[in-house]
């Protein structure tokens, strides 16, 4: 199939591994799905410490379930990416370990305090879900099918995150202040989740023309602000003064791009941001620590004896 045919036919779930697709399509889809898969994995690692730090048994169970889900989403997405025939799952995981694999800006920052958890679990996951819901109509069928299962599970993540936020914002004055401070720290990063504005987006036009991407960065950012600004306010959070956000007459929002730190964003995009490098290496170390599990599974004949089992953390 040539590129013009792809563009003509590009509709929801239109193309499957049975189709002979041009390299441009396969590469663009691989880039997009691999990024998504890596982000699921890195997000899980960011939240993993909170299984231990959770303040109650209910929160511990939910955090544990969520981390498990995210790793599962990564696995589904590596399969959807692998089915394009450009990169193997092994190559993608190796690239993630050696620092070449790209992933979401928000997961390059450290998260140390419980009050930060709703910033990821409610706002970042809420943003991700806005985007993922549109990707159920992507043109690469295996990607759309992965989104069906991801969206099915993700509602729990967002609502659990919102529940943590509700609890913190109806807690002590100190809890409320710490939560507001965490919100102010994370808010610009969350706005940047959707990437640069449409006119600065390098990959959007092609991905949209072949039906991989359903909505532009600006449309998604608008849809997010429209839903989540009222939510934040309803729990008593104050929206930070910067970045300046203007509500236009047509109900959409305009974000003052100059108020956001794009140098940091593009440093992150190159995997050069120091805390992000720490996240990548942290995951690599955890992977290596449990190499014995994979070795045991793969060498069915050899007994696992001989060395003391090690935990990933």
């Amino acid at each position, binding site marked *: 199939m040539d590129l013009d045919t792809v563009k003509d036919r590009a509709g929801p779930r*239109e193309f499957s591994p049975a189709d002979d697709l041009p390299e441009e399509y396969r590469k663009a889809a691989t880039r997009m799905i691999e990024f998504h898969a890596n982000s699921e994995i890195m997000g899980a690692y960011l939240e993993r410490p909170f299984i231990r730090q959770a303040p109650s048994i209910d929160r511990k169970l*939910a955090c544990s379930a969520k981390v498990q889900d995210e790793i599962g989403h990564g696995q589904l997405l590596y399969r959807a990416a692998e089915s394009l025939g450009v990169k193997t799952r092994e190559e993608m995981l190796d690239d993630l370990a050696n620092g070449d694999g790209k992933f979401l800006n928000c997961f390059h920052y450290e998260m140390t305090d419980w009050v930060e958890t709703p910033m990821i679990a409610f706002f970042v996951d809420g943003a991700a879900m*806005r985007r993922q819901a549109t990707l159920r109509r992507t043109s690469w069928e295996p990607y759309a099918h992965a989104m069906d299962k991801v969206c*099915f599970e*993700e*509602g*729990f993540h967002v*609502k659990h995150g*919102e529940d943590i936020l509700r609890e913190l914002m109806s807690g002590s004055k100190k809890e409320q202040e710490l939560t507001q401070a965490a919100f102010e720290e994370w808010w610009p990063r969350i706005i940047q989740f959707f990437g640069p504005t449409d006119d600065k987006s390098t990959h959007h036009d092609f991905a949209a023309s072949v039906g991989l991407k359903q909505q532009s960065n600006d449309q998604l950012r608008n849809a997010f602000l429209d839903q989540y600004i009222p939510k934040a306010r309803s729990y008593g959070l104050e929206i930070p003064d910067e970045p300046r956000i203007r509500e236009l007459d047509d109900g959409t929002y305009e974000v003052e791009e100059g108020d956001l730190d794009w140098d940091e964003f593009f440093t992150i995009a190159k995997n050069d941001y120091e805390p992000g490098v720490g996240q990548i290496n942290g995951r690599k170390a955890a992977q290596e620590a449990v190499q014995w599990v994979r070795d045991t599974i793969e060498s069915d004949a050899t007994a696992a004896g001989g060395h003391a089992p090690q935990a990933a953390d």
Partner: protein
Amino acid sequence: MIWEVFRQEKTGQYHTHCGNVHAPDREMAKQFAAIQHGRRKPTNSLWVVPRDEVGEIDAEDVAFGGTTDKAYRWATTYKTTGEDAREVVESEDEQATAERQRGDD
């Protein structure tokens, strides 16, 4: 040789199991599947898989979904205020449906 047949009604939908055919090889299995399972119901694509290649694990072998209460896993457990995003509502509805169909509570 028995071949299990999976039918997809429209582009982009899932291939779901719809029956099986008797055939000596893959080519014949595809032909028989087209005739027996692709004619009356709307069909976009069929898969044929040798029955021996299908692995099965059933509810006697394993407790699917475990035997413990995992209410913490469902969106329906968490109370929020105001209107939720439509995709969150949709996810919650799908979960509520799955929860009811599991019927083990």
